[in-house]
């Protein structure tokens, strides 16, 4: 059954400092989004809010394998990627508030986070629409002899889009440095994988383009990191693109409007047994790498960061309506 969690054991060993860093990153995402959901309920955040709850190990593990110079293209469920990549929680929260201190001045919102310093090129809310962009980023780098690679996140739903197939073919044909990072959470919004794919082994799609591929347990942050390092090394070697499927699950609905008629509570509960954060905490405690005190300290750091982010967003300002028509065309006065 496709919806069953993978039953791999969590990978070991890991150094304590690195382990705490990974846990910290996952906790930041989990707590940040829980707070965002509350603020959505309080109507501080509006529009769509697509939460990453349950999938944190994927963004955290993959970002570890990338360098600051690499390019990131992501989907509309990208708070986790943005946080793990290093966009400040305050800039993300302010963006969700619609404040001009947000990372896209409040023009993008939750689905369109952007940041130049971390080479984070969106937050794309058309399923599959970010893949051709990734091809272009990688093409430009290859043409100019740059070392960097482009990592493109997308979900299983995107695999049904023509843009996925066009982009895989083009990347393979031109041997472009693209990491196709498929977050297979088993549902394209509410349509289960076996109801939208004639072939549910997604690595076979990659095989048809002669793109090397691997599948990893996306609930295991160490396994994700290891698989991503292998994938990134392959791409950086100049061998062309690589397809990495991370098997994961979203614990909450597709968006705030989802009544979840399409899946059972049992299935969700079964997956929650493989919560990437709980699994990792248990592993680290079993290994003697994490104490209750360490965990409390991490939680306190995360809580402080989120409170500061909320305070930053609350204190943020609204862009003057007179500026409404800016950023439609470039302001030639700016450098």
């Amino acid at each position: 059954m496709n919806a069953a969690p993978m039953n791999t054991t969590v990978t070991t060993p890991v150094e304590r400092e690195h382990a705490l860093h990974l846990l910290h990153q996952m906790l930041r995402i989990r707590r940040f989004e829980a707070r965002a959901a509350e603020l959505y309920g309080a109507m501080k955040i509006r529009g769509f809010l697509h939460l990453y709850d349950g999938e944190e190990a994927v963004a955290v593990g993959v970002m570890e394998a990338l360098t600051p110079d690499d390019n990131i293209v992501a989907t509309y469920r990208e708070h986790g990627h943005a946080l793990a990549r290093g966009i400040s929680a305050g800039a993300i929260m302010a963006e969700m508030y619609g404040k001009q201190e947000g990372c896209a001045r409040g023009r993008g919102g939750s689905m369109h986070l952007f940041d130049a310093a971390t080479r984070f090129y969106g937050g794309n809310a058309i399923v599959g629409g970010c893949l051709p962009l990734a091809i272009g980023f990688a093409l430009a780098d290859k043409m100019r002899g740059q070392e960097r690679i482009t990592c493109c996140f997308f979900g299983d739903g995107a695999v049904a889009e023509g843009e996925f197939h066009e982009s895989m073919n083009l990347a393979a044909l031109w041997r472009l440095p693209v990491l196709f990072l498929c977050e297979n959470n088993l549902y394209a919004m509410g349509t289960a994988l076996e109801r939208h794919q004639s072939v549910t082994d997604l690595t076979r799609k990659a095989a048809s383009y002669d793109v090397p591929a691997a599948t990893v347990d996306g609930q295991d942050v160490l396994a994700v990191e290891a698989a991503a390092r292998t994938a990134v090394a392959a791409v950086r070697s100049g061998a062309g693109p690589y397809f990495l499927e991370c098997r994961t699950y979203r614990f909450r609905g597709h968006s705030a409007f989802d009544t979840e008629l399409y899946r059972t509570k049992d299935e969700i509960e079964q997956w929650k047994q493989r919560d990437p954060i709980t699994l990792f905490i248990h592993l680290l405690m079993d290994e003697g790498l994490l104490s209750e005190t360490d965990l409390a300290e991490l939680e306190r750091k995360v809580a402080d960061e989120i409170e500061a982010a909320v305070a930053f967003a609350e204190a943020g300002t609204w862009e003057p309506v007179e500026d409404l028509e800016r950023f439609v065309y470039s302001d030639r006065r700016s450098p």
Partner: protein
Amino acid sequence: MSGNGQMVPMTYREAVREAMREAMRKDERVFLMGEDVGRYGGCFAVSKGLLQEFGPERVRDTPLSESAFVGAGIGAAMNGMRPIVEVMTVNFSLLAGDQILNNAATILHMSGGLFNVPLVIRMATGAGRQVAAQHSHSLEGWFAHIPGIKVITPATLEDARGMLWTALEDPDPVLIFEHASLYNMAGELPASAGPVDIDRARVRRSGADVSIITYGACLFKALEAAETLARDGIEADVVDLRTLRPLDDETFLASVAKTHRAVIVDEGWRSVGISAEVSARIMERAFYELDAPVERICSVEVPMPYARHLEQAALPQAETIVATVQRMVHAHV
């Protein structure tokens, strides 16, 4: 190239090719990408010879994947290159509609001004070659609806030669619509011909009695009509819009203020198109200048038929322009 005044015989096709050649020579970030632009030489032979001169890295044949290669152009533009993406025809561009509308036009705005998209997309547009309903439409008006992109329609050799470089220097996406019936148009250009602006309309023929406002291949039907009308004592001001977005209101409004009559000629369909937009702006800003209602001559609202007599009947023609102007002028003498 020799003296500035020296005239060189050239077709529209060669003018576009020269513009691309010059751009690739001047700026190593510029490259051409599209279906059959390399070995085939371009489906309209526009890029013939460029592969030999610049090599396959910079004259890049693509698979038939409009969405992927247009999107790749966007990504490459955001990452430091200056791509020219060729889409064979405007009808095919609909396969890349997601990338043009949802990415090229929006990323500057969605990113709060962080990332601009200095991309040029060229495509053929228009009818007259009996290639029926999937290769003949004039959809530049659709694209002109979209904030965030610029839409330009070179009609003359000078513009075919000169608008591309200016478009490449623009920080935002520019779509260039080349009417397919113009590629064989022959004429002369100064050897020194170079970049021209992409934001002003141009009066191509001066007259005091009526403004004929048009763009693209219809410019030449309008000029032909103007010569016929002149024999009847009616002098037409012929305005070539050149740029459909942003529209240069001032030039056509000044023309209307001079002539007090306006006929808009557009190969696109009448409903909800460029002709409707120009007409509305005249109503909004020059209503009291008008001696007659604005008239529009557009393509008949059918998918373009194959049979020659039907296709010609569907398109704006010089005779229709002449008859319309005569009716307008004589009704108000």
